[in-house]
């Protein structure tokens, strides 16, 4: 039986789950250090998708309904 570890939300998880979270966070820290500017707006993701869309060479004709 693996050792259970308390978490910030009072749900105990196994040691290996905490290790898995630690590994993800380590990767996050490295990426954030390189790519996360201070003060970034976090909610502009949808706008970025629209902005980076392909040119409309498929034609903008509406689908038949």
């Amino acid at each position, binding site marked *: 039986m693996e050792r259970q*570890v308390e*978490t*910030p*939300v*009072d*749900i105990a*998880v*196994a040691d*290996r*789950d*905490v290790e*898995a*979270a*630690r*590994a*993800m*966070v380590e*990767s*996050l820290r*490295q*990426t*954030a250090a390189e*790519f*996360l*500017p201070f003060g*970034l707006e*976090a909610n*502009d*993701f*949808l706008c*970025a*998708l*629209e902005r*980076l*869309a*392909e040119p409309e060479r*498929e*034609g*903008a*004709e*509406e*689908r*038949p*309904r």
Partner: protein
Amino acid sequence: MSGAILALSLAELAERIRRGAISARAATEACLSALEERGRELGAVARLWPEAALARAEELDRERASGRIRGPLHGVPMAHKDMFPREGALCEWGTTIFRGQRATQSATVIERLDEAGAIDLGRLNMVEFALGITGHNPHTGHPKNPWDPSRITGGSSSGSAAAVAARCVFAALGSDTGGSIRIPASLCGLVGIKPTYGRVSRAGAMPLSFSLDHVGPLCRTAEDAALVLAAIAGSDPRDRTTSERPVPDYTRGLERGVREVRIGFVRDGLEVAIDPEIAALAQEAMAVFRELGARVAEQAIPSLAPLNALRRIVLTAECAALHRELVRTRAADYNRETLARMAPGFALSAVDYLQAVALRTPMLERFVAEVFGRCDLLALPTCPVRTPTIAETDTGGDAGFVELSNRMGALIGFANYLGLPALSLPMGFDSQGMPVGLQLVGRPFAEGLLLRAAHAFEQATGWTRRAPGAAG
């Protein structure tokens, strides 16, 4: 007659129904019969609604006879993953925890399929809460792969893939939070598309991770996928994350081919071992695209490992937030696999989650600039491992199961985190006779180009015309 109907593609069936060569009732009866027999053998069926489906088919036949066609899917029978509710009907999310749950409102995608004329036959089994990539679900039984019933279907849209691949139904909706459309499409020999984030409404559908959840179809062909996607895509006042961008007629450009389309083939640097047979099939697929006139070149991409880590932080944190109280009070009622996938989310901090969410835009900008500056489509295997058996992977959520799940999903999760459209299509068969999928990824809202390339490839290779043997 029933076998001949079931051998048609969705597009072929819809065309025959429109001109009165086949009735919606005959198609519905054929599908219901196939689902009752083969579908249940494969463990794909959650529940069927034969009376309502046949009544709807007769209504649609009467309308056609009087000259009314509701839409491109008039009279086409479909069934869907058990996370898309229909008002008044059971919708149980693949879990015993919500056994008996009845929907008070239909999901937007179900309403849109109704408007397009589709017939809803019932609900198909899925991984519990859609949290898992292998297809295992001890509560409902593990769905079996129609190409070899000893093997997994992939998940979490396991029943959807099994039912469509077994020719029990013409298409099925699935969801994809980290490959749950593309992996089962790959393992079962289907075309499955995860559209751009915001292209298809998630309103009413069971949430797993609201930043990463996508809804899309599993179909036999790219043309079928184009028809279903066109029916369900578009803005929705019930889902504020949907885009206002107009929905193209995806079927109109299908025949344009891929001449001069730049395909970036990712051969190296994928940071996961690709099975040699899968790697060889991907090389052959690139040769086919070259023969079709595409400009295929090897393409380097940013490391996928950090993107996968960021996706897992967002997924497990959002999922843990949704399930917090249920896990506290009913942990024993969950599948062990489900808890194993979700558990790291409880050990993350708010700071971790917020940073992972905030990094999406710069990561997307970097990926698009570095990759789609040089190619129009990215091509790579959908799944790096060959389809394992149910027995060898039924390990109850232990460390080996989690590792296998992460490996199976190593090449797909980045498209969920970045919101990019991605499609899996059959690119051949391995030495055990199992289908293998090729993944195409495009710029935001490039679904039309993905479907066009898939259509050209399947016309050239014929892989999508193969069906699993009835005795398989």
